[in-house]
């Protein structure tokens, strides 16, 4: 049981990171990473929707008929997005303004529908909630890191605090968004292949991991 959660946590944050490995939900990633703060805001909004929709879909997975599952999932997701939107409008109007159009577009964010389809509709409630949480954390970390890099290079600031007057306008523009994202994915792929190579070299037989797999 414990190793299950370990696996979910590892998969969500690193193993199949939704932004860097699966490349899902690209629209908000490219549009909102001009500032690190926007990355955190968007990440947390998506995490909230992911956890809620995963829990509800997992609870209803035996009730929803298979033929109409996609419209049912979309309806559940749209409901939670509306809740987030109304909450943010009241509680954090500044963040609501800066997320703008991309807040209602969480409905069509592929990450949420993909997790509903491939995880929540097949697993129990607690596992689905954990999956939503860690996938959301993986998304938030990736967005915040990209936002920080683009904010430092593009406007010489971090979290809105000015560091120096030097800045490269390219990274704040839309072309810079594509470039930064490309570099992030390539670096992620490079480092993960480096780590897996090292692991293979040091302990070839992998006795413990084999045991773990048997239990699962």
């Amino acid at each position, binding site marked *: 049981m414990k190793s299950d959660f370990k696996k979910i946590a590892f998969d969500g944050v690193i193993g199949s990171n939704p932004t860097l490995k699966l490349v899902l939900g690209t629209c908000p990633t490219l*549009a909102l990473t001009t500032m690190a703060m926007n990355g955190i805001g968007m990440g947390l909004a998506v995490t909230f929707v992911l956890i809620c929709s995963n829990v509800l879909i997992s609870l209803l997975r035996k009730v929803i008929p298979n033929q109409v599952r996609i*419209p049912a999932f979309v309806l559940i997701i749209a409901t939670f997005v*509306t809740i987030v939107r109304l909450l943010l409008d009241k509680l954090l109007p500044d963040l609501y303004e800066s997320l703008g159009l991309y807040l209602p577009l969480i409905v069509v964010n592929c990450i949420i529908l993909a997790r509903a389809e491939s995880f929540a509709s097949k697993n129990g409630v607690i596992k689905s909630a954990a999956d939503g949480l860690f996938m959301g954390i993986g998304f938030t970390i990736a967005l915040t890191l990209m936002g920080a890099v683009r904010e430092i290079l593009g406007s010489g600031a971090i979290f809105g605090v000015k560091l120096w007057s030097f800045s490269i306008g390219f990274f704040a523009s839309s072309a810079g968004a594509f470039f930064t994202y490309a570099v992030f994915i390539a670096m992620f792929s490079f480092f993960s292949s480096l780590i897996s190579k090292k692991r293979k070299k040091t302990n070839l037989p992998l006795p413990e991991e084999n045991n773990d797999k048997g239990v699962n």
Partner: protein
Amino acid sequence: MAEFIMIIVSAVFINNFVVVQFLGICPFLGVSKDFKSALGMGLAVTFVMTLTCLITYPLYTFVLVPLGIEFMEIIIFIFIIAAIVQMIEMALKKFSPTLYNAMGIYLPLITTNCAVLGVAELVIDQAQMMALLGIAEMSMGVAVLYGLFAGLGFTLAIVLMSGMREKITRLPINKHLKGFPIAMITACFIAMAFYVFALVI
């Protein structure tokens, strides 16, 4: 007339949906491997976007606002889009099987395309639309025109992308850059090209 041209230039070039506003990136990266399917996807999206604006704009202004239930917009819009896509699919299957076979696989994907929900959400935001297009008043005609030309802007970007990607696949590329990273670097160059339009005007 000047207004008309302004809408076209703004929707297609200055505020291009894909490379400036980052809407519809998933099909832009996913369905741009060859020219033919890119063009098919672009035109299918354009059609759905126009139809969506034609239905959602009057529905929002004349039904949701008078009733005071604007907060239901997301749920209602996504269902309208899903219904439009479903109806087009059924109509194509019945009346033009050749077109259905050519476009069939892209149609279900359009429901979850951010560009479609994005245009529906954008045209009801009166203040932002007026600032974007430099017009004095928002109307039904402007909404539908914007939907049509934003869709054509999407088509232009995805077709340009497919042309470049067809050439790039023949080059030797580092294995870590293969796939999405190199596609995004290609998109980076297209974005730079579109950025020039904003400077000129």
